[in-house]
């Protein structure tokens, strides 16, 4: 009899390595580490490349790196990735990801997209199913259900004269006063943290600003064409991805919807043990 140890494994001793990849003349910051099958991780609004600590895996990514070769590029505008001004629409992001995959030698790759990254991962899978072997969407934005109000993200994250990222934490985290939330979005940020966060917000706003924030109106009707096996994970307390949006995501023919209790939009930060679920799906049977 084999005993499977389901406890989270130890973090790899070495963190990711940072390098800059040139894609169509634009710099893309890529963090890479771990061993195993390649995994393309597209980050979220409040995630690696957006909040510190810089150049370290988040606990979720550290766990994934134990069994995957994790490649985590910074989306345009985030971290040191350049060329944001060239991105006008979803097509620009899709072609950017196509070029990036080619540059990184990725095809038929497992793609994990968190939040904003989940949106772009889906747009990629929709147009280039050959590039995406399996799709994991963690708290994906991108789908808007008319009549279901979502609090305006960019108003909640507007800076304050004197400290206080409380409004942003309450929007994004199930436990806004917990160590994870306070670590990601502290009331007083260092200059380095502010630069990373504000750069990322500009990256997010490039396509996400149009109200209601973060949506492609056409995506809902197109999701029926996403045939790759997909796992969609939604936090029950996610204020940015309401229950109705979760149901829309579940209309992808190959999708399974997993709802997590006590989880908000930043479930990837607050629930790193999800890595087991993600890994199990990526290596499991169809």
């Amino acid at each position, binding site marked *: 009899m084999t005993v499977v140890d389901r406890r989270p494994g130890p973090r790899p001793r070495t963190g990711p390595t940072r390098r800059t990849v040139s894609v169509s003349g634009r710099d893309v910051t890529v963090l890479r580490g771990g061993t195993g099958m390649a995994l393309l991780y597209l980050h979220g609004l409040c995630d690696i490349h957006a909040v510190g600590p810089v150049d370290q895996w988040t606990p979720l990514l550290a766990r994934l790196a134990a069994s995957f070769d994790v490649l985590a590029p910074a989306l345009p*505008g985030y971290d040191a990735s350049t060329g944001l001004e060239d991105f006008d629409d979803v097509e620009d992001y899709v072609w950017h990801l196509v070029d990036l995959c080619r540059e990184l030698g990725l095809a038929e790759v497992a793609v994990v997209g968190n939040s904003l990254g989940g949106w772009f991962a889906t747009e990629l899978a929709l147009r280039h199913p050959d590039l995406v072997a399996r799709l994991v969407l963690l708290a994906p934005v991108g789908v808007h259900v008319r009549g279901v109000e979502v609090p305006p993200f960019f108003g909640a994250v*507007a800076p304050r*004269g004197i400290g206080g990222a409380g409004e942003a934490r309450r929007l994004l985290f199930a436990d806004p006063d917990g160590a994870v939330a306070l670590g990601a979005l502290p009331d007083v940020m260092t200059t380095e943290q502010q630069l990373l966060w504000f750069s990322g917000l500009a990256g997010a706003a490039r396509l996400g600003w149009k109200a209601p924030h973060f949506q492609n109106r056409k995506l809902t009707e197109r999701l029926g064409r996403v045939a790759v096996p997909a796992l969609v994970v939604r936090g029950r307390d996610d204020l940015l991805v309401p229950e109705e949006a979760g149901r829309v995501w579940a209309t992808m023919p190959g999708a399974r919807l997993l709802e997590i209790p006590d989880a908000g939009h930043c479930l990837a930060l607050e629930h790193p043990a999800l890595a087991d679920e993600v890994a199990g799906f990526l290596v499991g049977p169809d």
Partner: protein
Amino acid sequence: MPWPHLAAPREFLAANEAAWVTLSNANYDPALGKALYDRYISELVEAEELGLDGVVVNEHHQNAYGLMPSPNLVAAALTRETSRVKICVLGNALPLYNPPTRVAEEMAMLDVMSGGRLIAGLVVGGGPEYYSTNVNPTDARPRFREAVDLVIQAWTRPGPFAFDGEFYQLPYVNPWPRPLQQPHPPVWIPGLGSPSTITYCVEHGFGYMGVAYYAPPETFARQAVAYHEAVTASGRTFDPELLGWLTTVYVAETDEQAVEEAAPHLAYFQGTLAAGFVGPGKVWMPPGYIDPPALVQFLADLRGMVQGQRPPDAAAAVWKRSPLIGSPKTVRERLLTYVNELGLGTVLALLQFGSLPADLTARSTRLYATEVVPFVREHAEKHFAAKGWE
């Protein structure tokens, strides 16, 4: 054109995060609003009667700070209520208009209606405006500059012509009417000291109006020095009229009286009405509107300013931060310093600010217009002529 009926800063900020974007318009009382428009427009008309050179109106949206979402409407009224003064619209926020030829049209109307008295202010629009209109802030600046180019072409190129820009594509640009002033009305642009804005103004022959309501006066002095350097670098001749200072002015019989009378209304202006882009609460500064390093610096300065405000030093702080608040003699001397040392040629005096009531506004405006301006104007004309500046 402020809404003066909110609470003083401490009380206001205890209950509200800002006077912009989200402060409910249930706070606006249209009956009081009618009286306010009557009063503020009368004050602008009075400025002509007192001999000032021009009047200025500005554009803001969804806020208690400025009640002119369309300054052009007030300017249109002024074309009929005045006959001599320049009418400066400072300005229209070009990225908020699509297509921005709308601005070219309305400003041409104002120029023709006023008999060629328009000064055309063109602005990017404040941070809060991007939240209020949902216009994308991440390309606000390149969009603005292209829109300026389009507006100038619309005024100067015989139509119809096609405009094929990055942001705006129009097959037929051919606005009727055209402006009366040729080749086009003077263009002024307000700025907070960004080197690229200063260079842009100099290279295009636009006026640069330094805004310094919320910063110490040396901030404007730095902007003026940078302006001169840009003029020298461009090989152009300095034109004092194109270097302006937008600042609060209050004149009373003595310095002490001026500070004492102005202080609570300045505090309301800076503490209550400006809450939303400066101050301890929410700062409606959208992502990508300025570069991240500039935003970090802006917030650091802001915290320094907010934390530096100690109530016991209020009078001294007013004095230090608003040098044009004082007796006629003091304000004259200080203005002369700016004229002599910085070549300041245009003063956009904010004579009504915050909750400053009608009687104090009228008295201060009269003192400024009769006991400060003629003296400074005469001196400046001689000084500029001696320098060879026209």
